[in-house]
């Protein structure tokens, strides 16, 4: 068979099965030198499995992995690294218990060891070089606990790029959803870095944000059901086309269900005046019944802090909050829940779900009192309610007793949303509700958000993308440096442009 000579990393006719599923079905995939390859697909399409094959986590059932044209048996991420394949993980994998330098060279301390002694000065000097590549100006001895999330992500990328000065041939960097914690400016910086380093490295770029993939990649692979269903040059691709390939159907024009954006009621569901806490001051807003209020802002603008304060997760230092006209004190999440405020967190796996508990237990977690009579949990009633929500939201789960950890991200998120609906929350604070949710499930989530407003629920939305924020919201607040800097109405047909918001964000 013919093979491009310049391929630095390729997978040929790879097949991998797990009990009951074919995760990779005869996949052939290659990355050429100095190339940025986009890899897209819904969750469960096989992207993660492919990455795990490329980093040696999973051995293949059939087919082979080739590095620089030679068959390689990769025994794990470390072995892949030594072969020139580095991965930037989707989950934050920076260890906050170690310093910046120690994180960059974790597992490769041998390079700085003489006779068993770790030479710290040498390690720090080398770390400085790597940090420069990602334009991060921090002391290598700083503990990663003292860095922001975005800075940690940059350390993560620096760690992968450090391979550059260690391997003679070309290197391949796998970027798995690297932008999910980054804001626009940092994403732009990342893309610049990627472009700068193309003469030394090839990249595989994975993201749910199709526009980003198009912006940075030369070529895009689309995966569905464990197989590659499309390969195209970015120049020939459009988001609609990619989307169609991914989900196997055309993207509906009304992606954000704008046709269902109704008129909010007149009643004020949530009113906030002069609110202050760590990260923001003097925030006032009014949220009407059935309204979606979007809040835009970069990381550190205070919008996350505001969301957490409203959820009772951060102490409020000044100001007042009223729900349906009644003043409430939000000193703990249970106060917020009691006031009818539900919080869908950004870190779903940490604060959204209990992976080791069952679907039904998760669903009734915020409203257990409703299922208790005479001090006894009524399992039957609980299960019935849970099942009705499973049916209603089309949550794919074998049963109500399944461990939530085994569900896909989208189904987990639907479950989190149902948790608050079961709890009868009248106000929902959605902090990146579609993060880590695949495209098909995203639409379900949007549908669900519209359903909720139809029922009179009010929503505060911190969107995953500006596009999403604009598409969904009735009204948008922009925050910068802890204050509200602008307010936009966003009625159907008269939505603000992204650039209008951005000018107030930075």
């Amino acid at each position, binding site marked *: 068979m013919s093979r491009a000579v310049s391929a630095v990393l390729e997978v040929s006719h790879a097949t991998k099965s797990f009990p009951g599923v074919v995760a990779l079905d005869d996949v052939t995939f290659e990355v050429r030198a100095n190339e940025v390859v986009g890899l897209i697909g819904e969750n469960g399409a096989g992207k993660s499995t492919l990455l795990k094959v490329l980093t040696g986590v999973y051995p293949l059932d059939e087919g082979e992995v080739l590095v620089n044209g030679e068959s390689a048996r990769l025994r*794990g*991420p*470390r*072995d892949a*690294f030594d072969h020139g394949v580095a*991965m930037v*993980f989707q989950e934050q*994998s*920076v*260890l*906050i*218990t*170690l310093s910046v330098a*120690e994180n960059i060279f*974790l*597992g*490769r*301390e*041998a390079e700085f*060891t003489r006779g*068993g*002694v*770790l030479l*710290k000065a040498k390690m720090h000097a080398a770390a400085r070089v790597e940090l420069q590549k990602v334009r991060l100006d921090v002391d290598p001895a700083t503990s990663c*606990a*003292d860095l*922001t999330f975005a800075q940690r992500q940059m350390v993560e990328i620096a760690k992968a790029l450090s391979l550059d000065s260690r391997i003679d041939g070309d290197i391949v960097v796998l970027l798995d959803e690297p932008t999910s914690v980054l804001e626009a400016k940092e994403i732009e910086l990342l893309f610049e870095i990627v472009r700068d380093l193309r003469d030394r490295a090839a990249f595989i770029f994975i993201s749910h944000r199709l526009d980003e993939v198009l912006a940075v990649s030369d070529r895009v692979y689309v995966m569905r059901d464990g197989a590659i269903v499309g390969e195209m040059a970015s120049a020939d691709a459009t988001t609609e086309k990619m989307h169609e390939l991914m989900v196997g159907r055309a993207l509906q024009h009304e992606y954000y269900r704008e046709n269902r954006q109704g008129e909010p009621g007149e009643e004020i569901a949530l009113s906030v005046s002069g609110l202050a806490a*760590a*990260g923001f001051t003097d925030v006032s807003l009014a949220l009407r019944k059935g309204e979606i209020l979007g809040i835009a802002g970069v990381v*550190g603008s205070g919008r996350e802090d505001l969301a957490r304060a409203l959820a009772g997760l951060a102490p409020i230092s000044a100001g007042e909050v009223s729900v349906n006209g009644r003043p409430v004190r939000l000193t703990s999440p249970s106060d917020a829940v009691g006031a009818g405020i539900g919080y869908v967190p950004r870190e779903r796996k940490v604060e959204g779900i209990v992976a080791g508990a069952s679907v039904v237990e998760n669903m009734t977690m915020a409203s257990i009192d409703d299922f208790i009579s005479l001090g006894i949990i009524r399992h039957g009633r609980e299960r019935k309610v849970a099942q009705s929500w499973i049916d209603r939201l089309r949550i794919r789960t074998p049963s109500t007793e399944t461990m939530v950890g085994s569900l896909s991200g989208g189904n987990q998120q639907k479950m989190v949303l149902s948790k608050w609906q079961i709890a009868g929350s009248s106000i929902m604070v959605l902090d990146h509700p579609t993060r880590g949710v695949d495209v098909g499930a995203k639409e379900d989530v949007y549908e669900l958000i519209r359903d909720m407003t139809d029922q009179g629920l009010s929503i505060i939305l911190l969107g995953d993308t500006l596009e999403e924020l604009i598409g969904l919201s009735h009204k948008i607040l922009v925050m910068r*440096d*802890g204050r509200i800097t602008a307010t936009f109405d966003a009625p159907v047909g008269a939505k603000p442009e992204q650039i209008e918001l951005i000018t107030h964000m930075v």
Partner: protein
Amino acid sequence: MEAERRGRTDGLGSVIRRHRRWAPVVVLVLLCAIIAMVNPRFIDPFNLVRLLNAAAIPTVLVMGATFVILMGSIDLSVEGVLAVSAVLASAMVANNFTSADFGLWAVPAGILLGLAIGGVNGVAHVTLRIPSFMTTLGIGFVAVGVATAILQGDTVRISDKGFRALSLERILGIPAGVWIAVAAVLVALFIQERTRMGRWLYAIGGDEATARQAGVPIERTRVMAFAVAGAFSGLAGVMAAAQLGQGHALMGQGRLFVTITAVVVGGTALSGGVGSVLNSVVGVLIVVVLFNGMVLMGLPPFAQQGVQGLLIIAAVAMALDRSRLSFVK
């Protein structure tokens, strides 16, 4: 703007955090001041030497325990390893139980025996995938059992003056045991700061899955950490034999909880990833000063456990850096 924003939100926090590191030392100084006010003899230089002497063996024990706890594990075999090493060491020098007389060879032998038992702990823990709590509990029982079976209730009495000198000899007015403990701290500090294993302990305690992905040899590091912890316990056994002039199966009694308490009071988190052997040295001093102080202040015996309990709660509440722990178990 970046700096401005960070300055506002983290400025104060990071200042406190930087100083929080010193909280255990503050607790120690405070405790000393209170005791010295009640009984000024506390700060008599001779008493300070006695305090160091009392701290010597616990210090050696916490070195190993800190390593294990940094990984988020725990070593409950401390008492057993200490006893069996003390028995071996005392039976190797001139004594009434065996005809052996290997002199100071008993020291490396005791350490190696500890290392071996620690290694067994580690291997059983990682290969059978049993929580370290249970593995080390079981192996600790086995160690005491072996010592008991060998001695059949006897006590080995040491007659080797050279070996006893490990505890009794004074250099610059300070007992040799203290110097050994200082050396042990330096070795431990070196391992922690200047070897790969030391750094890997923090990585494993911080997030084992990530450390594994980065190519950290988790299993090997775990086994090594338990082996090193065993070696320190073995050294402590040798020191205890030299100090008490004997070796028997119950030598280790009462050492375990003191050791773990000292590690935690020093500010090392039981959940792993946060702490240092230096913290633990401070922790040992806090515990030893507390005990010494209660006798100096003439507290009635029945009240001591209670007062100790309350003060330890106070000390940990002040000393523990919880800023990095979102929740406490």
